């Protein structure tokens, strides 16, 4: 393999990490509060605001049911507005983030719903405000589950990032298609797949370990 190809692979790996890291960060920034609201906004729940919950739940579902490749091209004008350009790695972060938000929100909603209702009741009995309950009870207690959810989201984003090649997003998937497939270089394709496997493995085991460390429900936790 030529040094040129090796350089391309290193660059593509960095591009992928860059896109995934940014999309995960922005996705969490919006997805976390959204997920908390989806878990607590229902009728008779902590932040009871059923109308808003229904609307946001619908928007989240609609975004998640749009195939990612369609989302990428459909929002090009929006991408240009946000990123200043519709082409390139930075621009690709926009559709990735948009896809990540509802996904992360649903995962966080599930993690929050796992928290024993007895804890919420205990906090209410102490005279806690709904915001205090979210901050001091729900988020800390759901944290191991939230970390696992974000791990899953990161792995999914690595997969999604392969598609943003259609808008010149770069990254490993794009490299695999352009060199491995279109230029008949199976060894590039093989390396891309191996790097992706290593990335996903690394992200997953890091997430698992972090979640286990945070989970104080297990006696053997450190």
């Amino acid at each position: 393999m030529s040094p040129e190809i090796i350089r391309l692979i290193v660059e593509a790996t960095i591009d992928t990490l860059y896109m995934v890291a940014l999309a995960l960060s922005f996705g969490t920034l919006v997805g976390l509060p959204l997920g908390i609201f989806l878990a607590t906004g229902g009728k008779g729940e902590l932040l009871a605001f059923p109308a808003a919950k229904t609307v946001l739940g619908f928007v989240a579902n609609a975004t998640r049911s749009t195939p990612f490749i369609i989302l990428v091209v459909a929002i090009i004008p929006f991408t240009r507005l946000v990123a200043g350009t519709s082409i390139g790695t930075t621009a690709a972060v926009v559709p990735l983030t948009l896809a990540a938000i509802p996904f992360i929100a649903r995962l966080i909603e599930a993690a929050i719903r796992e928290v024993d209702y007895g804890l919420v009741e205990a906090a209410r009995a102490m005279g806690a405000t709904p915001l205090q309950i979210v901050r001091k009870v729900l988020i800390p207690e759901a944290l191991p589950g939230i970390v696992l959810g974000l791990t899953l989201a990161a792995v999914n984003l690595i997969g999604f990032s392969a598609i943003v090649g259609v808008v010149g997003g770069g990254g490993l998937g794009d490299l695999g298609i352009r060199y491995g497939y279109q230029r008949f270089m199976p060894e590039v394709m093989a390396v891309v797949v191996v790097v992706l496997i290593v990335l996903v493995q690394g992200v997953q085991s890091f997430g698992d370990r972090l979640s286990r460390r945070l989970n104080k429900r297990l006696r053997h936790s450190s």
Partner: protein
Amino acid sequence: MTSRATTAPQNRHAVASADIVVFDHVHKAYAARGSAGAVAALHDISLSVRTGSVMGVIGRSGAGKSTLIRLVNGLETPTGGRVLFDGVDVGTLAGGALRQTQRQIGMIFQHFNLLSSRTVFENVALPLEIAGTAKATLAKRVNALLELVGLADKRDRYPSELSGGQKQRVGIARALATEPKLLLSDEATSALDPETTRSILDLLKTVNRELGLTILLITHEMSVVRAIADEVVVLDGGRVAEHGNAYDVFTQPQHAVTRSFFANDAGRQLPDDLRAKLQASAPPGGKAIVRIVFRTASADDAVLSKLARDLGVDVNIISATVDTLAGKPFGWFIASLDGGKQVDDTVAYLARYGVNAEVLGYVA
């Protein structure tokens, strides 16, 4: 409700300041799912909890105990009547005013409800953080509370590393953190073994005595009420079936539900072989099994020997226990008597001496 002449008069028409909690004709109905209409949980409850006392509410599951206790700290609101805490109608409070009141009421739970992500220290600190207590005050207060419940050496442990009894001690320390005027106990010992239950009840008693904290507890276990309560309320089907001071309710239960709780109380059970042979009606030549409850220790021997002399009845004692309740002694016997009319005579005879006898059944 069965009225009792024996209930201490100061509990019946007490002035507001002496009662920390007053239920005034309280109703609670839940909106049912579908078209079934509302489901009533509590009917016309009127009760007062005297400041500094321990009131035990006992009832089967579904009797409305949980609802009753949750009305006091505003976790539920009544659909009728008023619940007063320290003279304030809790049901009308909302927002900051409700939270201010809630901070004056501690609560402990059957499943402890400790935060698994927080250490023992941090769990006890939670209500103080919520109330916005300054850090230095908070640490001092939490350490003192952990000392009080005997868990000072566990302050940096997580709940998963504690036994059930230790978890409930953390729960109690947490409930006391904001120096409440009232402690609500929601089946706090129901998940614990008998020995641990005893130590938790001892701790609650200590807290009641030394801090002068009023305790309102709900339970389905008679032994809990017997161990700790000054006053007993028996709840059945959302209504007060019986209410009085613990000694009276225990020694002279009036309501069938109360008696059924006695039957399940470990200390009052019949020996198994005898229970198996028990019949509802008297077979010819059979014997009656009676439970005789003495309310004062001194009367025991005299009455039984007089009974034998006056009626010529042979009282064959099967088992006997002497216990103290609220500082007063009481004893009970399980005895067999010859069947027939004699049994009624004996019960009537004993009643004249203020001794309560109850026919449990007959054996051949």
